[in-house]
């Protein structure tokens, strides 16, 4: 096989392993949490958007990126408004405007209504909001690029059941939206329905009831199809393995959280993380023996997956290192007096590397168009 053939084979249209996308996205999250530099954060959002635009599939999930980003923007706006009107955590001297204020009793110290609005506090809120936006964009990108259901297929045996429960919950949400649209339209057939809270209740009741009924159907269907079947395993062993996995996972999530949030020093956090992961792996290996589940056409893990994860890692490590070396440029939030944010070139380059999957991964296969069937689904919501 010539090199050309090889390359062709590796990059022929297919879906990238979902875990690769999630690792890549987590790396972006890690990068975003290390900095409050507005340029770096904006670039992270941009990189996420670029990769999503280049490699998203036609599944329902692929629309979630926009939803996540919009949510981030709303949060940013809310944060700015709240900072201006109610909370002033950052002292500052650059007064922009002084609003009429209302005195609050001492018990509510720290909260104010109105009063002086400083540029420092607004900038602080802006940077923090941007950071959150970048995190959401990265998570949204992972959602859009890798169907959570496919990610689930790769989850180790012991966690699979929990995973299925989560995915069912995730599926429930978009279905609810679809149902809500349908019910809202149907309710118009009754005449002019009330608006406001009563109107909401009126949509919510049939939607939730319908959703509940269909979840129960789903559970019944899954049960009849052998979901969560086990071989003969002693109860005690099952409990031990389950406990280990749970403990390990909780530890790992806690450690990760602490590390990303900077609450724990890497020196303490990393060993905790390692131990937790070991616990979880041991538990799932023990449990894996009881599950007889096999996999149908598992997703391959090949060069493009490695490249994707590596590009994310470059961004995460790069930004972390540069943030440690040059805190003023990388973390301008909360600095007093205000400084003009500068362009940290090295960090920007590191983040740009994370855009590599937009070209270095195989394109997703094109699903065949489904004209007739689309028509069937459209009128259901009377779109």
């Amino acid at each position, binding site marked *: 096989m010539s090199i050309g053939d090889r390359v062709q084979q590796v990059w022929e249209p297919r879906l990238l392993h979902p875990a690769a996308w999630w690792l890549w996205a987590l790396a972006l999250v890690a990068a975003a949490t290390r900095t409050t530099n507005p340029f770096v954060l904006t670039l992270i959002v941009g990189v996420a958007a670029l990769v999503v635009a280049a490699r998203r599939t036609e599944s329902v999930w692929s629309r979630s990126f926009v939803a996540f980003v919009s949510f981030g923007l709303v949060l940013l706006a809310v944060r700015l408004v709240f900072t201006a009107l109610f909370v002033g955590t950052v002292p500052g001297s650059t007064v922009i405007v002084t609003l009429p204020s209302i005195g609050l009793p001492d018990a509510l110290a720290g909260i104010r209504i109105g009063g002086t609005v400083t540029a420092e506090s607004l900038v602080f809120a802006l940077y923090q909001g941007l950071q959150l936006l970048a995190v959401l964009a990265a998570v949204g990108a992972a959602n859009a690029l890798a169907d959570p259901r496919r990610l689930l297929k790769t989850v180790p045996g012991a966690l699979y059941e929990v995973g299925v429960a989560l995915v069912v919950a995730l599926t429930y949400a978009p279905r609810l939206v679809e149902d809500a649209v349908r019910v809202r339209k149907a309710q118009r057939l009754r005449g002019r329905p009330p608006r406001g809270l009563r109107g909401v209740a009126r949509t919510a009741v049939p939607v939730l009831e319908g959703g509940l009924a269909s979840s129960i159907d789903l559970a019944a269907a899954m049960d009849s199809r052998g979901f969560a079947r086990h071989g003969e395993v002693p109860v005690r062993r099952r409990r031990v393995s389950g406990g280990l996995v749970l403990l390990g996972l909780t530890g790992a999530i806690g450690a990760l959280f602490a590390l990303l949030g900077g609450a724990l020093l890497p020196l303490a956090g990393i060993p905790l993380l390692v131990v937790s992961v070991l616990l979880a792996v041991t538990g799932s290996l023990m449990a894996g023996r009881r599950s007889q589940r*096999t996999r149908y056409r598992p997703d391959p893990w090949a060069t493009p997956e490695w490249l994707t994860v590596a590009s994310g890692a470059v961004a995460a490590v790069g930004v972390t290192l540069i943030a440690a070396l040059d805190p003023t440029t990388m973390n301008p939030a909360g600095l007093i007096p205000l400084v003009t944010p500068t362009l940290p070139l090295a960090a920007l380059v590191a983040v740009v590397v994370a855009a590599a999957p937009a070209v270095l991964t195989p394109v997703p296969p094109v699903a065949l168009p489904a004209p007739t069937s689309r028509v*069937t689904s*459209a009128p259901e919501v009377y779109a």
Partner: protein
Amino acid sequence: MIRFDQVTITYPGSPAPALSDVDLTIDEGEMCLVVGATGSGKSTLLRAVNGLVPHFTGGTLSGTVAVDGRTTTKNKPRDLADVVGMVLQDPTSGFVADTVEDELAFGMEWLGLAPAVMRRRVEETLDLLGLTELRHRPLRTLSGGQRQRVAIGSALTVHPRVLVLDEPTSALDPQGSEDVLAALQRLVHDLGLTVLVAEHRLERVVQYADRIVELTDDGHVRSGSPQQMMATCPIAPPVVELGRLAGWTPVPLSVRDARRHAAGLRKRLHDSGARAAQPVRSPAGETVSEVRDVRLRYGPVTALRGVSLQVHTGDVMAVMGRNGAGKSSLLASLAGMARPQTGHIGVAGLDPRRADPDDLVRAVGLVPQQPGDLLYATSVADECTTADQDGGRRIGTTRAVLADLAPDIDPQRHPRDLSEGQRLLLALSIVLAASPTLLLLDEPTRGLDYGAKRRLVQVLRRLAHTGHAVMVATHDVELVAEACTRVAIVADGEVVADGDVADVLASSPAFAPQVAKILSPQPWLSVAQVAGAVELAG
């Protein structure tokens, strides 16, 4: 293969058992049809086979249910997954995976089959059910018939000994249901599978059954050969009713059987000179609604491409066509819920796209495919009161309509606890309370038993006589034969036929009702017509 031994099932909080003292043995390789009115416990019986009842639903079961020698008391549904394949009523809500292939493989993964075996069985199943072209398609883009076949396929890949299906064809067009039934037939004949199927539309399945199990209202069962059961069973398809009327023995179960007997009846009808009594159209017949060259697109998909038709008072018009042909889109456009990009729509002088909602509900009313979408209150009485408030009507209007349509509904019940047919009538009452000139019904017979259907036919006819016009989108040819005066057939977003029921239906191989097939070339459509003529002839 399946054995019910003195089985009584009682749900908590219900006064009477859902099934009582059921003794039933179903042999290997039998195709067994379960019939009964809605609420008679068909689903309970089916779900008891693999232990979903009571493991999953709660309730108490006394006696034993055993499949292939394994009892449901000792085995949970998931432990029986390798012997019982279960296809529940709504395939869509049971889908776990995203694409056809993954869905087919799900059950096998949990049984721990080797990857090579799984791969082979997926390919075999795709061929068996004609799903090959759909293998990579996301499930949500499939049509109803395709979904049903995928659901059957995903139960089959584990090679169960028993397949249980709850109303597999109720949402399908005639062609789709034929595909599904043909596939089932093949499984029974070629693989020796034992099939247990519940269905309301007996005309579609009764001829394939080896045995019929009838559930009576008090939860008992009777079972026997189809001929034997159909001679007396109160629930029967038109072919059987015609056979009973004409006194043919044994009672024919298929159009083919009936045609062999029918020569005599045809001659008698011909000699008597009786004509098929057409549902009478009210004489006024003024135009209620006009649709001219309407085009509707959802994004890249064209749902309606240049539809034109007129509806007059006194019309009960059926809109038929495959799943996805544009029936619902047409109804939605008339009700102002979809906004066609071009063309003219007029309903009682209003354009539904622009009309004020208050005026529109008096011009046109739509009962949607899921009547439950209209309902939200906690009791029937409450539902009626709020409906009046919404419509700005005198309180009690809806109650009066409901009392007229369905006098036996207990006003204190929760709408969710009503039977499918009662819920439809409740939604219909809410829509009718505004007294719309044009009434639209989208697939009203889904899940209705013959009794409820008969009731609906009476209601529709009466509406037509009192100056309304009715349009019904449906797959149910027997309903059309009995209730409708006109049929429009929609295909690929266009009206391809529009005319009298007798003209349009009788000549179509897919849409002809059973009576028409039996008595062709004479233009009879329903048993009621034949009965009337026979009576006249003496």
